[in-house]
């Protein structure tokens, strides 16, 4: 394993120290328990938005703390959900009296730890709503599974809900909006190579030099199938077909098209993917009204990409366009 770390067990601690040193003007970084808070928080009368999850998906979530997005983020150990004491401390630190929205990716550990934190916060008199993002079409959603994994739509939900909170929309509205984003967002990913967890020291899964994994999860979970390396054109067609069939998206729909890098993918390749995606959507009569291209929800050093499509209405588009000032996303301000 080659990584720019000191000791594997210190990777998250050292990362947080770097974040604190780099962004002291806009972020407060707390340790034991670990959480990151925007420097203006708590903001009186504004719904606060808290998210979090295992580390290793940067810039998600700490890179999205700031004006127009999250009020706090709770980083867990690499690929391990944060604990309730972290989420509770972050929730208390940012509550400005208008309540707190927890945005949670659908993994069993994340859901339970956030639930416990929400219960504890409510015991202390803080209004908390939780919305679970479950958008990965690679995984079967049925009564007999833990439901779909939460992936790319999480980034879009954090941006859109953050904008609504800045407009002083009440907690119930912001939570409803988050559910709407989840209901209208679909994603699927693929891997060219595995990721390597620092504490494990070897690749999470084996992929032959001429193989790709279609439907991979952001922790290197297996997907739908393993197949020989294919062109960007063919890969995009596979991912998009699964996504479009699922919602389903229809001719005339306006979408936000999000091409995400998994951490080890050059931007050059992401634009190749975007070009294929744009052309394919147009050919199916789907209007790309907004786009986002870059590595925003990653899987350590995995090479590969995911595609997320979010069906837009005027309100979602306007909230997407609203100003945002975070270390990971910034425009309009």
């Amino acid at each position: 394993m080659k990584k720019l770390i000191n000791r594997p067990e210190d990777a998250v601690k050292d990362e947080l120290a770097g974040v604190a040193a780099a962004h002291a003007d806009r972020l407060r970084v707390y340790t034991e328990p670990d959480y990151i808070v925007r420097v203006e928080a708590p903001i009186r009368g504004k719904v606060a938005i808290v998210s979090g999850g295992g580390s290793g998906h940067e810039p998600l979530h700490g890179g999205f703390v700031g004006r127009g997005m999250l009020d706090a983020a709770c980083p867990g150990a690499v690929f391990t959900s944060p604990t309730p004491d972290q989420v509770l401390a972050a929730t208390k630190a940012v509550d400005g009296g208008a309540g707190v929205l927890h945005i949670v990716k659908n993994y069993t550990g994340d859901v339970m730890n956030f639930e416990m934190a929400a219960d504890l916060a409510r015991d202390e008199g803080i209004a908390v709503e939780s919305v679970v993002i479950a958008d990965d079409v690679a995984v079967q959603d049925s009564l007999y599974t833990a439901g779909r994994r939460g992936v790319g739509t999480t980034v879009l939900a954090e941006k859109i809900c953050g904008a609504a909170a800045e407009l002083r929309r009440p907690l119930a509205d912001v939570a409803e909006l988050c559910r709407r984003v989840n209901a209208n967002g679909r994603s699927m990913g693929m891997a060219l190579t595995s990721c390597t967890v620092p504490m494990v020291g070897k690749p999470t899964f084996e992929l032959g030099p001429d193989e790709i994994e279609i439907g991979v999860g952001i922790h290197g979970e297996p997907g739908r199938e393993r197949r020989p390396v294919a062109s960007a054109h063919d890969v995009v067609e596979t991912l998009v077909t699964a996504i479009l069939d699922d919602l389903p998206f229809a001719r005339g729909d306006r979408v936000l098209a999000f091409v995400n890098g998994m951490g080890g993918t050059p931007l050059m390749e992401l634009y190749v993917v975007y070009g294929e995606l744009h052309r394919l959507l147009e050919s199916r009569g789907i209007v790309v009204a907004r786009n986002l291209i870059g590595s925003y929800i990653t899987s350590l050093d995995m090479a590969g990409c995911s595609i997320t499509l979010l069906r837009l209405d005027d309100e979602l588009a306007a909230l997407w366009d609203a100003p945002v000032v975070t270390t990971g996303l910034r425009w309009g301000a």
Partner: protein
Amino acid sequence: MIAVAPDTDAGAKTAARGEVITRPAVVAWLRAFAAVVARDRELLTELDAAIGDADHGINMDRGMQAVLVKLDELGEPADGSVGALLKAVGMTLVSSVGGAAGPLYGTLFLQMGSAAGQASELTLAEWASAVAAGVAGAQARGQAELQDKTMIDALLPAVAALRAGAASGLSLAAALGRSAEAARQGMKATVPLVARKGRASYLGQRSAGHQDPGATSSWLLLETAAISLSAGTVP
């Protein structure tokens, strides 16, 4: 290596008058469980690698090591209650384990502690009620039913055995032994099941043929209880 349950219910003696579970006995149980988890850390992680995310042993060991530190901190207060002790253990697990096991075992101990209340020692019947409350809490947290291939498959039969033992006037040792045996059978019964909760559920049919790691750690907890909690009492 996982130890085999001793046959503690031989003869199923009836309860000796005044048999109770004291706070020091509970502390001994927790210390013994920490040692067992440390010993079987790799095995729990390997079971998890087959159908989950290969961290159950690592996470449980980290949590129980934190519990050992907490036990040292708490010491042996003269007026210490079993409930307060169990709640402190629950909070420690919640804040140190992470993943799904943290909230599940954390809730189990927190609810057990609430049910145990202020008493400094519990009768078998009181202990059975506390364990039942803890397991109900874990079940509510994880929303698992029997045969979902989770820790609940080991815990629910163990609670039933414990309650039956208390109701029929078994000795402490016999009742704890029967509950550990029920947990062991429940754990073994997870092997052919298809997982319906947690990460293993994504594997569908491929999860069959593997023993559930959560059910395994739960059996270890009850197996250790059978050995530690009745120490010094007549089996």
